[in-house]
C-alpha cells in the first residue's frame, strides 16, 4: 500500500490495463510523446509505442469516433479529451453513437470505450478550461458516468471502466490531480461502477456529492465535529450515472437532513436528480428541506481571481451550508 497522487492513480490504471490486455490503447491530443498536457499518460508512449499511445490530429469528434469504431470490432480504447470543455465537438459521437450502439442493434453490437476528460476549475483556466459538463451527458441512457474524488477510486474506477462492456465517461478532476493523495493498494483491484461510498459516518446531517467538493465537505465535517458537535454523514456518489439509488436513500434516511454539493451549475445538474429521488421516496422522513450548494447558473467561471473564487465551492462555503442545515 502506497500513498500516491490522484493523477498517478489514473496513469497507473491505464498502464496496468495496457499490460494486462493487448486490446487496450490510449488516443488523444498530446497523449503520446509528451504524455498529456497534465502528464496523465506519461511513459505510456515509451513503454507501449506510438501504436498504443496515439497522438491524434486535433479533432475531438474523430478521437471519439475512431475510438468507437475500434471498440466495435473488439478493441478497448481509452480516448482522452484534453479538457472536458473541448469535448463538445464529440458530443454527437458520444450521445448519438456510443450511447446507442448496443440498444439500436438489439445487443448485436457493443461499444466498450472509455472517454476521459478533466473537469473543474481552480487553475485560472477561465471559461473554457474549467467547466463541469456532467449535466450535458447526464440523463443520456446508455452512458455510464463516473467522477472519482480520491486516488483509490480513480484507479479502481478507471480499471472498471476499461473492463466495462459499455461506454463510460470518466470525469477526472484536474484540481485533484496533484492536490489529492491517498492510499492505493499495489495489487490489482477495481471499484465497481454504480456503487456510492460512505466517506464519513455521522448522524446529524447528510452531504451527498462527487469529485473535488467532497474534500471541502470532509474538512468542514472535521471542524464542525470539533467546534459545533455536528456529525456529518458524507456520501461520495463516485458514479453519477447510473446513480446508486439505494445508497442515496440510505444516506438521506440516516439523518433526515440532506445537502447536495457539486461544482457543476445548479440548474439541471446531477443534484437535481438526487434531490428528486429523495423527494419521491423519503419526503416524510426528512427533517429539513433538501439543500443544494452548486456552481452558480452562469456560463462558466471567469479567470479573474474574484470571479473564479465566486464560482467555486470551498471549505468555508460548504461548512456554512452544513452548519445552517444542522441548525434547521
Amino acid at each position, binding site marked *: 500500500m502506497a500513498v500516491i497522487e490522484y493523477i498517478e492513480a489514473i496513469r497507473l490504471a491505464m498502464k496496468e490495463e495496457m499490460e494486462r490486455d493487448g486490446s487496450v*490503447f490510449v488516443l488523444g491530443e498530446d497523449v503520446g510523446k509528451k504524455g498529456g498536457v497534465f502528464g496523465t499518460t506519461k511513459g505510456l508512449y515509451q513503454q507501449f509505442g506510438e*501504436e*498504443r499511445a496515439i497522438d*491524434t*490530429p486535433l*479533432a475531438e*469528434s*474523430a478521437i*471519439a*469516433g*475512431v*475510438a*468507437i*469504431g*475500434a*471498440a*466495435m*470490432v*473488439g*478493441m478497448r*480504447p481509452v480516448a482522452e479529451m484534453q479538457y472536458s470543455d473541448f469535448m463538445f*465537438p464529440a458530443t*454527437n*459521437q458520444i450521445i*448519438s*453513437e456510443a450511447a*446507442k*450502439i*448496443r*440498444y*439500436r*442493434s*438489439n*445487443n*448485436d*453490437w*457493443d461499444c*466498450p470505450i472509455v472517454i476521459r476528460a478533466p473537469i473543474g476549475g481552480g487553475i485560472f483556466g477561465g471559461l473554457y478550461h474549467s467547466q463541469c459538463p456532467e449535466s450535458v451527458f447526464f440523463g443520456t*441512457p*446508455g452512458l*455510464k458516468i463516473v467522477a472519482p474524488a480520491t486516488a483509490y477510486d480513480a484507479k479502481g474506477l478507471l480499471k472498471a471502466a476499461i*473492463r*466495462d*462492456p*459499455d461506454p463510460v465517461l470518466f470525469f477526472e478532476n484536474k484540481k485533484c490531480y496533484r492536490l489529492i493523495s491517498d492510499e492505493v493498494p499495489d495489487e490489482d483491484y477495481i471499484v465497481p461502477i454504480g456503487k456510492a461510498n460512505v466517506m464519513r459516518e455521522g448522524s446529524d446531517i447528510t452531504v451527498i456529492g462527487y469529485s473535488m467538493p467532497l474534500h471541502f465537505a470532509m474538512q468542514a465535517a472535521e471542524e464542525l465535529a470539533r467546534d459545533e458537535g455536528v456529525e456529518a454523514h458524507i456520501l461520495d456518489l463516485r458514479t453519477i450515472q447510473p446513480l446508486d439509488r439505494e445508497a442515496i436513500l440510505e444516506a438521506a434516511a440516516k439523518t433526515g437532513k440532506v445537502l447536495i454539493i457539486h461544482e457543476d451549475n445548479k440548474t439541471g445538474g446531477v443534484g437535481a436528480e438526487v434531490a428528486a429521488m429523495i423527494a419521491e421516496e423519503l419526503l416524510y422522513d426528512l427533517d429539513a428541506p433538501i439543500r443544494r450548494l452548486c456552481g452558480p447558473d452562469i456560463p462558466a467561471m471567469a479567470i479573474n481571481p474574484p470571479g473564479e473564487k465566486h464560482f467555486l465551492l470551498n471549505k468555508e462555503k460548504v461548512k456554512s451550508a452544513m452548519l445552517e442545515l444542522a441548525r434547521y
Partner: protein
Amino acid sequence: MKQSGSVQQTSRHARLGLSDERVVEMYRMMQLARKYDERGQLLKLAGKVNFHISGITQEPSQVAMAFAMDTTTDWFLPYYRDYGFVLSVGMTVKDLMLALFAKEEDPNSAGRQMPGHFGSKRLRIVTGSSPVTTQVPHATGIALAAKMRGEKSVSIVSFGDGSSNQGDFHEGCNFAGVHKLPVIFVCQNNQYAISVPLSKQTRGNIYERAIGYGFPGIRVDGNDPLEVYRVVKEARERAIAGEGPTLVEIISYRVTGHSTTDNDLDYRTKEEVEPFKQNDPIDGFRNYLVEAGLWSDEQETKLLAEFRAIIDEATQYAERAPFQPAEDSERYVFADSSEVKS
C-alpha cells in the same frame, strides 16, 4: 496481330478478373435491390409501412463496390440507400422486409430503427444511425484496429454528397490519411441532399478533397458498374498493401424523392428528372450482359418471376411477423451483467 491459336476477344469483365458467373450475379443483385426498393415504395403508398427510402439508380454502383470487397475479412459501413450494397454482402430480402415492417426478427435492429439503418455483426455490416456521416470516423477506427492487429482487412464506408460537408467526413478522412489506414471512403454523389442541390452544397469537387488528406481521390461514373468495380478493387489492393485510404466519388442521380415523405417536385421539375429515369444503369448493365452473350430475354423473365416470388414471400412473412414486445424495448441499454468481461 500475331498470336498463336485462335484470337479471342476478351470481355471487359474478364479483363477485370470477374468471371461470367460473378458478373451475372452482380446483375441479379442490382435487379433484386431494385425490385425490393419498388416494393418498398408500393408498401408505403398502400399504407402497409410507415416509411421507405430509395436507392433507385444507385444499385449498380453499390453492387459493384460490394463485389470488389472480401466478405470474409472486410467491414462494411453502408448508408441508408445501400440496398444493393447490403444484399451483395449477404443480407436477404426477408431481412430487409422485416426491417421495413419494423419487426422483432429484423437482424438490423429488431425493428427499433427506421428501415435503411443497417447492421449485422454476422455479415460484418456495422450498425448505423440517422445523424449523417458519423460512420466515417467509425470506418477509420475499424481500419485502425485492423492495422494494430496486423489483419488483412479493409473497411469501406459510404455516405452521400451532403455528408461530405460534415465535420466527421473531414475528421475521419484526415485521421485515416495520417495513419495510412486501410479504409475506402465512398461518396455516393446523387446530386441532392434532400432538396439542396450539389451547387448549393459545395463549390469544388468532392473527390479532389482527397488531395488535402494526402491520398488518392477518384471520380467514377455510377452508371458504369464495371468501372466502379475496378476503382474500388484497386483501392482495396492499395489498402491491403499498406498504402492507405482512397476517396471514391460515385456520380449518380437521385430519381426518387429523398424519402417517401418528400415531394421532390417542390424543388425540381419532371423535365430535369426524366432523362435520368430513361438512362437507367440497370438497363445498361443488362444490355452489356446480352451483348456478351450472358443474358437473354428468357432469363430476364425467369429472374423477374423468381424475384417476385421471393419478395412476395418476404412481404407476407414480415407483415405477419410479431413486433418486439413493448416490455423488451427496455432491454439492451447496457450489457446484461452476465456479459461483463472481468
